[in-house]
């Protein structure tokens, strides 16, 4: 029983990193109804910005975090200009495929420019795990979970209680109608992309500061985990993204414990499969979203 609770806690902690990654994905998917496969790699580029600053200039945590966010935003806007802005509505597949190409480009760029495979990343919080009765909780995990909850709350507030969010939801509902009420759709979509990348940057920073290392493969990992968490949680729902991430983490840790590391991903994909079959809108997604997503 203690093991079960401990595993569930660990799962929630790991899952909060997936939830963080899914948040940025959800903002982009919610607005564009398009899949940005190079989302993870843009976060990875930001991570390299941060790690270079840390290694070569001895930058502190805040500066590293700022660099990760800045790097993610710059490469995110690069992806938007290249893969999304030129593609007309309805050409979602073209955007997805070209974002896959940019994924490869970014990954190879990281390998070429910084040939060592693994770079250290500054730790978030050192020190022993906190003991709560028989249970153990890592302090950096707690910070990551707190970061995920805070970021989700900020995004939700921005979407529902600001002018920017109002415009964004208008674009989500109907780009032409949004244009007609005076929303500059192109500009807003670019800003949303930048915001999503910034969210990805914060997510990447927290996750990497827990892992304490960064490799070019982080991009693929971030895209995969973020995507699965978003699809489980519900396309286009902010609380859903977080919840999907947590659920994915819990399933992974339990299956790892019960059946070993090889089986872990098998279970993760099975959960995704089960959701796609039984509840394609995800935990909190609406069916209307699913209908729309067919048009991608």
């Amino acid at each position: 029983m203690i093991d079960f609770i401990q595993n569930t806690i660990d799962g929630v902690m790991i899952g909060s990193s997936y939830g963080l990654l899914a948040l940025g994905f959800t903002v982009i998917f919610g607005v564009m109804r398009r899949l940005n496969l190079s989302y993870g790699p843009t976060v990875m580029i930001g991570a390299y910005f941060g790690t270079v600053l840390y290694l070569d200039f001895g930058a502190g945590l805040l500066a590293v975090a700022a660099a990760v966010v800045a790097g993610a935003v710059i490469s995110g806007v690069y992806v938007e200009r290249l893969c999304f802005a030129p593609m007309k509505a309805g050409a979602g597949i073209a955007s997805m495929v070209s974002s896959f190409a940019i994924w490869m480009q970014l990954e190879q760029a990281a390998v070429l420019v910084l040939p060592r495979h693994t770079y250290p990343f500054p730790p978030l919080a050192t020190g022993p795990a906190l003991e709560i009765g028989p249970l153990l909780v890592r302090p950096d995990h707690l910070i990551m979970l707190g970061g995920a909850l805070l970021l989700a709350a900020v995004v939700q507030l921005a979407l529902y209680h600001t002018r920017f969010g109002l415009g964004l939801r208008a674009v989500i509902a109907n780009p032409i109608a949004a244009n007609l009420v005076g929303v500059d759709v192109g500009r807003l979509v670019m800003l949303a992309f930048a915001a999503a990348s910034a969210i990805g940057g914060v997510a990447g920073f927290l996750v990497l500061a827990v892992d304490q290392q960064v490799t070019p493969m982080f991009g693929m990992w971030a895209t995969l985990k973020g995507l699965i968490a978003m699809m489980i949680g519900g396309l286009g729902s902010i609380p859903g993204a977080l919840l999907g991430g947590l659920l994915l983490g819990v399933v992974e840790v339990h299956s790892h414990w019960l059946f070993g590391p090889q089986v872990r991903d098998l279970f993760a994909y099975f959960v995704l499969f089960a959701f796609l079959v039984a509840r394609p809108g995800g935990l909190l997604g609406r069916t209307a979203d699913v209908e729309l997503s067919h048009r991608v």
Partner: protein
Amino acid sequence: MLDVSELVTTYGKIEALKGVSLHVAGGKITCLLGPNGAGKTTLMMTIAGILRPRRGSIKLEGAELVGLSPAKIVSRGIALVPENRLVFPEMSVRENLLAGAYQRRDKSEIAADMERMYARFPQLKERREQLAGTLSGGEQQMLAVARALMSRPRVLLMDEPSLGLAPLIVAEIFDIVAALNRDGTTMLLVEQNAHMALKVAHQFFLMEQGRVTFQGTPGQLAEDEVIQRAYLGTRRAG
């Protein structure tokens, strides 16, 4: 007030507007009639900046609108109530109205305008926190009109406001059109319902196959003929 001249808009190689010119007089209701495919909606979308014309000009009180973004055109004083209303279904009535004022920054004036809209459309006030997608067709049409008015337009364009509505509701919508005009709103109205349109219009234009084929005041042409040409066109197809 609004002057459209020699406007040509194309979809690929097909010319939907083949040099349309018309004038909308300030403070008046101008109606645009014509059969399906005549180019009425294309004209509205071109004036609103959603479609870019190949040639021609659109001037609001002398200032050129062609080439401006739709958002800029809204801030210059044109608002379009689109065909099929296109309210934001997942937003509340209140949020739809706020979205209508997206280009404005004068918070207290926006709040005052909201109250004016609620006074004019009491049904919207009752449902201010309800999602727009749950309103009836007539209520959605009222919301679309109110949303457009929230930008304080100098010219209000309406594309088929009676589309898909029950006759009683259509009459109500036309009452609103007449009332808005009495308060000084300049309107360009596209309408399939020629009978209702001719009752409120000060001036009307007939469009057929991408061209203006008649302009005048109601009464200048027998209603029968207007209706026949508005629904069927004069030229036989192909």
